[in-house]
Structures are given as structure tokens and as C-alpha cells.
């Protein structure tokens, strides 16, 4: 067989007559299968034309079913390969488009020079493509060096880079405030980040604090060393452990319950908080099994 692929035929009636006609014309039929009153068989592609002419000339009604063999598969594969290539190109194009940066938007600037912020961001992000999960912490640290920037965060939303700036308070003579209020911890934990907007910090990142402990004192010290009462303000994040106890059901595995509870806990987390680790243990109390879950999160306190 020089053509490389085979063509399968179906004849409704008198298969012996058709096969004898084909054999008489020097055509070789292969894989003959009886199907009811008829039969199906395959002919090599180089003999198919001759075979069809013989059958037509003999009044044999036939149906061409499909092509098979290496070259037939190759033909089909060519079509599939073209489809796959175009799909891959489309995916790559979409990915490149979504990873590319369209614009840089700065929010929260009043007194800080916006151009300086933009220039700094562009220096830190020279590539026009930003992959998902890109670390912007270096850019955030650099932005803190700009005069008047107390806090900066950089993130990607769609194809835009969003730079959020919190400016330092204006350097105006501060008068004694009537209500010097400290900033206490809402929860106990290990401080991971502290940004003081107003006041004097009492704790540092890495310190362990308990609930109610003062994080930022309600005063500032002037250049002349004078303590000026003020309302403490700032952003304090800490690693906090939260626990949950649920009764183990009689049926079902503890692992499924753990995953279910963990997903529910994550869904109910307050804005800005993120789960970083979790663990669990099963305890027996009064002949009942309880599941204790421990969640480590980073949140504002």
C-alpha cells in the first residue's frame, strides 16, 4: 500500500458478489466484517478509486465510512496541531496582555510630589510585564524614602499598578490635644509591622503583646524635648492565634471537617487579614470527641 492509509466501506447487500468483483479487478480487501446482510471492509488508498469504479460498474451500493491508517491520522493530527497552536497563541497573547502594565495610579498624595512617586515606582518596576504574585515590597520600602511618605503600598489591579500613599502629618506646631488617647492592642499576638501616624510607638516588630497593651503612646516629643499630648494613630499588624472547638460528628472523617472549618474561617476573616497557618488536634472530653482548630493569621490589632 503506497498511499499510506486505508478507506473503509460498507455495502448493504450481497457482500460475496462485491468481494468477488473486487478480487476479479485485482483489488485486495482487508478486515472484512459481516454486518447483517451486508459487510464492511477496507481498501488501500491506492486501490480505492479502482475499487469504487468496480463497485459502481457492478451496481453495488456502497458507503464510504472513514479513512484509517498512519497518514489518515497524520492528516487529522495536522488539523488538531493547527488548532492547538492557535489556542496556545491565543492563551499566550491573553497572558501577555493581562501581565502587561497599562498605567500606574497613585492615590493619597496631597503634599507629596506625585511625579517623584511615579518615577520611583517606574525605577523599581522596569519591566512592562508584571507576573501574578510579584513582590512589591522593595518598591514599598523605597517609597518610604520620599519626603512626607509615612506608609506606602503597591499592588496590581487588572492591568494597573495602584500605589497607595499615606502622608505624614504636616509639620505644624502641635497644640495640646484635649483627649490624649493611646492606641491599645485589640488582640494579643506577635507584632509583624508597625507604622506610627501619630504618637510614639512603645513596641517594635517582633514583640509579643497581650490584649489591651499600649502599642502607641499618646504623645510626641518636640524638637525641644517637650512631650506634646496627642491622639495616638497608626497601623499595627500582628500574628494572632485564634482557636475554635467543634464537636466531631459520629460519621465522616476529621480531615474533611478540618478543611470545611478552615474554609469557613477564611471566608469569615475580616478585611485585610490573611491566614498563614493552621493546625488541629482531636480531644476526648466526657466521652465526646472534640476537634480543636488553631488558626495563625496576620491582622490589624
Amino acid at each position, binding site marked *: 500500500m503506497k498511499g499510506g492509509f486505508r478507506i473503509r466501506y460498507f455495502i448493504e447487500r450481497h457482500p460475496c*458478489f462485491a*468481494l*468477488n468483483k*473486487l*478480487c476479479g479487478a485485482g483489488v*485486495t480487501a482487508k*478486515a*472484512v466484517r*459481516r454486518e447483517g446482510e451486508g459487510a464492511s471492509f477496507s481498501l488501500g488508498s491506492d486501490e480505492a478509486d479502482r475499487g469504487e469504479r468496480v463497485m459502481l460498474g457492478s451496481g453495488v451500493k456502497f458507503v464510504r465510512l472513514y479513512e484509517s491508517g498512519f497518514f489518515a491520522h497524520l492528516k487529522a493530527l495536522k488539523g488538531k496541531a493547527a488548532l492547538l497552536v492557535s489556542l496556545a497563541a491565543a492563551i499566550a497573547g491573553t497572558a501577555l496582555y493581562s501581565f502587561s502594565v497599562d498605567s500606574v495610579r497613585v492615590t493619597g498624595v496631597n503634599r507629596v510630589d506625585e511625579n517623584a512617586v511615579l518615577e520611583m515606582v517606574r525605577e523599581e518596576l522596569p519591566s512592562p510585564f508584571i507576573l501574578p504574585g510579584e513582590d512589591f515590597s522593595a518598591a514599598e520600602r523605597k517609597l518610604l524614602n520620599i519626603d512626607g511618605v509615612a506608609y506606602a503600598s503597591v499592588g496590581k489591579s487588572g492591568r494597573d499598578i495602584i500605589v497607595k500613599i499615606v502622608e505624614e502629618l504636616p509639620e505644624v506646631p502641635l497644640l495640646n490635644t484635649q483627649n490624649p488617647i493611646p492606641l491599645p492592642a485589640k488582640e494579643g499576638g506577635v507584632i509583624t509591622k508597625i507604622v506610627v501616624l501619630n504618637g510614639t510607638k512603645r513596641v517594635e516588630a517582633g514583640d509579643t503583646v497581650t490584649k489591651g497593651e499600649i502599642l502607641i503612646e499618646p504623645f510626641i516629643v518636640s524638637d525641644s524635648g517637650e512631650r506634646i499630648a496627642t491622639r495616638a494613630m497608626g497601623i499595627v499588624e500582628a500574628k494572632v492565634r485564634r482557636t475554635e472547638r467543634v464537636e466531631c460528628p459520629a460519621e465522616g472523617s476529621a480531615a474533611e471537617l478540618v478543611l470545611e472549618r478552615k474554609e469557613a474561617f477564611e471566608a469569615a476573616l475580616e478585611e485585610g487579614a490573611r491566614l498563614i497557618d493552621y493546625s488541629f488536634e482531636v480531644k476526648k472530653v466526657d466521652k465526646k470527641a472534640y476537634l480543636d482548630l488553631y488558626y495563625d493569621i496576620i491582622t490589624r490589632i
Partner: protein
Amino acid sequence: MKEIFLGTVTVEGWEKVKIEGQKGIIGYSAEEVAFRVPGGLLRIRGNALNIDEISAEIAVVSGRIEGVDREKAKPPKSRAYR
């Protein structure tokens, strides 16, 4: 002059029969395949019989072969098969 069958019939492991010199197929079912051969008929009996290949020179039948019978030619009365 009496015609004699000059072809060859080869049975391979009761799973395949190769007939060389067949003169046409006259019947085909899953239980029996019959060929015209010089001087008579050749019947292959069995189960799940398939014709792997058929050409002017050779025919190969596969399946569970139970027997190969040869019948001497009789004077044709009518067209038995089409």
C-alpha cells in the same frame, strides 16, 4: 480433463486459515465461509469468523476454526449465492 485443486490451504493454530488459489467467495457468515476452488468448494467452519484479507490470489480467514471441508464440484443447478 478433470480439474484438480492446485492451491494451498494452510491452517495456523486453528485460528487462521490461508487459502491460496481461491476462485471466489460464495458464502460468508460468522460460522462459515465458503470459497470456490478448482474442482469444488472449500468450507471453513468455526466461530466468530472474519476475513482478514481477500484478493485474487489469496484469502485469509481468522477466528475459532473448527474444521475445513472440501466438497467436490457438482453440476451447477442455480446461482447459489450472490
